[in-house]
């Protein structure tokens, strides 16, 4: 019955997290994974989730020492002013490039499959304007909107899964170990970026009703999302088998292929609607968090006013690559290789420094008193 005006409940947080991270199953991630380890690709999300669990757990544990403090405050507190500043800046830059890269991916998808003649800039501008508008409304509203639509997003995703299952051949996942266990184990740690967003979510802790909401919500979303990405990859492998490597965006190829009976042969638009809605939400949240980071680093209190200008910058960065191919090479690859491991290292670093500084003991003493 307690209401916290302007605070984020667990439902809203989980919906944001599912939309933001779960959406990866619907872009080029499955293909990327397939190209790495072929038909064992579905194991990678689970494996990476298992590996990323350790830094995430340590991070949450460290953060729980500082109730209601966001990630950057904690970094500054533990690592000191200067080192903290540099690390915060690194995180901000990585996630900024992340947002540019992934918005660009979405634009490429939209252009490739649905609006072939419309200029990139127009599609991009609409996406960014809507995201900026939403982000300006604040985190609580982002949470509310995601909670309103997450149900429909998931239902439509399951319908796609179900329909594609009818065309899929489960034997496609054999030979079960793909290119060999060693290769899988090697790829696992490299794909940590899949879950990098969870690290960034630590920025919005002050907006939660309590730290517990954050840790609980994170684990729920984390488990769900890793299963969802894995399941999606699994189904795409079943459906496309060896062709998956050559298909840029398997989700969209699937929705173009499946049909609801012979009289409604092409249903891609229905799923496109849901997909694009979740994309809007995803970037809105992403944009908001980035603005929050920026405001935090440069001590700007009313960071909401930064959102339009930041959004414009992201748009300008996003349209630099000439073609989707360039975008993939220039942006995506470095970001995916860098983000996850960096965040993992930072988490572990934070925990270790906190441990050495005796923060945990300190907190314990405080509690016992």
């Amino acid at each position, binding site marked *: 019955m307690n209401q916290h005006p302007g605070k984020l409940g667990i439902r809203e947080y989980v919906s944001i997290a599912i939309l933001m991270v779960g959406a990866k199953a619907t872009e080029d991630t499955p293909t990327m994974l397939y190209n790495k380890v072929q038909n064992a690709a579905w194991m990678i999300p689970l494996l990476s989730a298992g590996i990323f669990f350790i830094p995430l757990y340590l991070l949450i544990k460290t953060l729980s020492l500082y109730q209601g403090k966001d990630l950057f405050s904690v970094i500054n507190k533990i690592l000191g002013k200067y080192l903290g500043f540099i690390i915060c800046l690194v995180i901000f830059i990585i996630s900024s490039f992340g947002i540019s890269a992934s918005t660009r991916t979405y634009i490429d998808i939209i252009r490739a499959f649905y609006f072939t003649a*419309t200029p990139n800039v127009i599609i991009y501008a609409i996406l960014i304007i809507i995201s900026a508008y939403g982000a300006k409304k604040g985190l609580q*509203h982002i949470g509310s909107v995601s909670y309103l639509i997450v149900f429909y997003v998931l239902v439509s995703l399951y319908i796609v899964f179900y329909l594609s299952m009818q065309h899929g051949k489960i034997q496609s996942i054999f030979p079960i170990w793909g290119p060999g266990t060693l290769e899988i184990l090697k790829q696992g740690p490299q794909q940590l970026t899949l879950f990098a967003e969870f690290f960034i979510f630590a920025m919005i802790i002050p907006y939660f009703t309590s730290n517990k909401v954050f840790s609980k919500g994170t684990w729920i979303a984390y488990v769900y999302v890793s299963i969802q990405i894995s399941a999606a990859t699994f189904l795409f492998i079943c459906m496309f088998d060896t062709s998956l490597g050559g298909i840029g965006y398997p989700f969209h190829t699937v929705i173009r292929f499946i049909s609801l009976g012979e009289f409604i042969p092409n249903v891609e638009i229905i799923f496109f609607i849901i997909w694009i809605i979740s994309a809007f939400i995803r970037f809105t949240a992403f944009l908001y968090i980035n603005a929050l980071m920026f405001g935090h680093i440069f001590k700007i209190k009313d960071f909401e006013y930064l959102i339009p200008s930041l959004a414009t910058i992201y748009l300008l960065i996003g349209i630099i690559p000439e073609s989707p191919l360039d975008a993939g090479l220039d942006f995506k690859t470095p970001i995916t290789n860098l983000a996850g491991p960096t965040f993992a290292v930072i988490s572990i670093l934070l925990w270790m420094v906190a441990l050495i500084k005796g923060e945990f003991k300190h907190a314990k003493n405080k509690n016992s008193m």
Partner: protein
Amino acid sequence: MQKKISKLWKQGLNTEPEFNEQSNARVIDLKKQDISASYDQNLATFKSLFTVPDNSDVKVREFTITSLNRKGFIIYLSTMVGLQIIIESIVEPLIDDEHPSEKIPDIVSYPIASTNTNIGEITEFITAGNTALFVDGDKQCYLFETTQISGRSIEKSENEVIVKGAKEAFNERGIDNIALIRKKIKNENLLVETRTIAKRSRNNVFLVYQKDLVNEELLKTIKDKLDSFVVDSILDLSILEQYLEERPRSLFPTILYTERPDRAAAFIEEGHIILLMENSPACLILPATFWTMFHSPEDHYLRTPYGNFIRILRFLALFVAVFTSPIYIAITNFHVGMIPPDLLMAIAGTRERVPFPSIVEVLMMEIAFELIREAGLRVPSPIGPTIGIVGALILGQAAVQANIISPIVIIVIALSGLSSFIIADGSLNFAIRITRFLFIFSAGFIGIYGMMALLIAGLFYLLSLKSFGTPYFAPMTPHSFSSKDLIIRHVPMKERFRPGYLKPKDIVKQRKG
């Protein structure tokens, strides 16, 4: 172009000129004084205040009070009072009673009486239909509540028709309206507070609420808001609605306006606050969320499965009303592959001879539909149905035969137009119809993508709306405790809680066991 824009901005920022009121300091000063003991002075004062004898319905009756043997006069507005009552219980006793007595209340037999000395206040009472009695040598004035205004009797609700459930509706008389609520909630905690909101025409607002349920903070906010108006007159509840709203320019309503007393009573029981006004055949329910607009009282009167059935229908109608025509445009203009081949061929075949692009076609028909609808409302009732038939059948049929409109468009428009009628709330209905146009434009611009962009922006906007601190989609999101009566309702036995977003003093309305 730039010059024009800057000019527009300058125009926009221009403030209104200063207007000065003609001084009536003398009257204001007079109103602040008390009445005097002198009969003649009082008579002169009130005659001048009410401009007697130019003001034709102000009646002043002078007489001698037999038992006191003093002069006295009564003043009243003949159009606002029950003349019979004045004659029988005020004038007759005063003139005829010969028993020597000292006090006026002992002589006059009228039950409701009070005394007052302030000229201004007495004036207010007289304008409200009271009869004022002045006695020579008495420093106070006797006021009798003789108000009797003619108006409609209680009739059937016309704008919110339901099949099962109470049929009566509010009318223009405040007393009747309060009585309608009182008879549904027989509890001494039901408070009817009166507040004057306009200075000049002295319009009253009745705040009706349950003292032991309503959240004090909410009550205070509303009272403060009501007291904050500096305005000469607010004649109607619907104008008050606009004054009260946080965002009067918003497309979507944040206050529920209903003419059904049963609905008002139900909301009072939940801990809402009801505003009533003299002369307005409706009430305002605050705070209101999207769901209160979306629901109909019948949802609860019908048995649970039937109630939910019409809920789902209404939900569907909401989507059909908003999205059919935009989707038609988006699909036929941008996403042709989406349509089943047979339908595609049919649409393409019928469109071949239509001279306009499909967006113009749809816009034309939408506007035509709105015109017919509005015309149907305004025409005198005997020819109303005829207009409907002419509009719908003849116009549509003729337009198709003249190759101006393709038949598919007629279907699309009719479907979306009719669906919009299912949304019973007048304001929400307008909101839906206007939103449809916005969606048509966005669909014409960049298809489904534009529509979805607008939808998301709209959702963000809607969620940021607040009605007296209550989020628009509460209690769905942000989540708060309630009996979960949103899209689907439970059986009444399971609806055990009042909505948590109101923070009522008692959240449980049905204890277990």
